[in-house]
């Protein structure tokens, strides 16, 4: 499996990883915390105040232009909800094998953050899904409505950890 990369390819990959991390740190300093660097996967945790700037920087300066996924994860123990954007690149040959993840950690009781639709149009429906599944409010989203759940859903957002499937409580 070529996941780790061998020889020249592996060195190139490490250089690209370092370059991305250095650029982001130089631009955002303490505001973007590096969570991990794995082969071809880099994750930053950023605050919701700079998420728009960060995403614009990632698209325009770094070259991550292809939205792949928006995932929400509920951490009731830490009283927070992670919203993670996974962004790939279609046009920059050096970055095409990479996925940049940047996450916002929101207060679980008041999960509000700005929408990233102005930067990545493709996240519209992903954000709607995170809204109904985890109750995250994306400010500025044009249609923050129910998407996959039934119209008469009358319970808490189902991907929160305190929602249990009937008969399978544990």
């Amino acid at each position, binding site marked *: *499996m070529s996941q780790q990369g061998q020889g020249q390819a592996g060195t190139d990959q490490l250089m690209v990883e370092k370059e991305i991390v250095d650029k982001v740190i130089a631009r955002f300093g303490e505001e973007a915390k590096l969570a991990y660097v794995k082969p071809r996967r880099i994750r930053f945790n950023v605050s919701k105040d700079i998420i728009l700037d960060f995403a614009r920087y990632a698209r325009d300066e770094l070259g991550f232009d292809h939205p792949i996924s928006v995932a929400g994860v509920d951490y009731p123990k830490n009283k927070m909800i992670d919203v993670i954007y996974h962004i790939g690149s279609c046009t920059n040959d050096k970055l095409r094998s990479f996925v940049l993840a940047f996450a916002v950690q929101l207060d679980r009781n008041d999960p509000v953050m700005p929408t990233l639709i102005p930067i990545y149009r*493709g996240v519209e429906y992903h954000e709607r899904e995170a809204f109904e599944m985890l109750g995250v409010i994306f400010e500025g989203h044009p249609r923050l409505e129910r998407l996959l759940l039934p119209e008469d859903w009358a319970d808490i957002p189902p991907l929160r950890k305190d929602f249990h499937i009937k008969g399978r409580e544990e």
Partner: protein
Amino acid sequence: MGVEMGKERIPGFELEGRDEDGMDRGILTLSVGPQHPGSGHFRLIVKVDGDMIVEALPDPGYVHRGEEKMCEYRNYIQNIPHLERPMIADSCGILYPYALAVEEVCNIPVPERAKYIRVIMAELNRCIFELYWLGIYGIFLGHSTMFMWPMADRELLIDLAEMASGARVTHAYFVPGGVRNDVPDTFPEKAKGHLLYFKNRLKEYKDIFYDNPLFQARTVGVGILSREDAINLGATGPVLRASGVDHDIRKVEPYDVYDEIDFEVVTMKEGDSFARAYVPWLEMYESVEIALQALEKMPSGPVRTKLGPNPKGAVGEAFKRVEAARGELAYYLVSDGNPKPYRVKLSVPSFREIPVMAHLLRGAKLADMPSIYWSMNYWPVEADR
């Protein structure tokens, strides 16, 4: 990098001109679906001005099953069968990144032979899926021969998949650590025969379908997706490649043994419904080539790493993606060290085509809706999960 969405310039597009009572003057709202249009329940709310679509609001969710929630209640092995249910026509494609993600989180090695078998099965499934889709695309544009032929040829490939895995569809064949069982000894020979026959057969599709003036009249120049829009809207797979972006995960981030196999990434520049139908056809040739090469290079040896009961993951996360038949399929898997995953997020190509579909339908003619919808390769069950 500017983002031009362009459609606003089309005359007659703006939703203005409301009457005093708030009604849109001359704008008619239609509900298309949610009856089963051949691939699952899905509704499009379409607003038309005459026969021009001024707005299309996709309304998925009729076949939502809560796959992601279900994952949190089952261990890594129990999750295998239900995760392939959203896309039974391409069940290997949807399980592939799950297997890769669990292998990373639980640190499971994969034997070399299993990697080749996975590649063969993934490519067989790609063809099985594309044929199914092509048949339905054909029948919905009124071309019944194009329904019959792919459905018949598909059986040959399904026979191969059945021979390897024991099931015609929903194989549950890819497991963390390899594949469930080895292929029979007679498999390589039989597979070569079927694949070579299928390759010859593919040529005839062009004569009967792609060169058909009626099919061309309904698809050429219809629903043009520009390169920039395709990227920014997150389009993937044949939809992206039909708009001139040579992005294929098998090539840009090769998994298993795709880096040892020689194949081309098919792209077209037109970005219309015809290109989106033509790219998968060209890709089936490549799939046959990949499968034949993998059959040739496949070493002998074990096909599965023996796992203990209830394998546990390390604390951490994995993001794995593969090129499924409809495009980039990614799993985001979070593990908290238990035998059950903490969170599984599927980013499926069908779901990512929803904004593309809404974008293309705006400003299109109502009569072009079927050809745009089907060229999206959109599968409601997969999108809803």
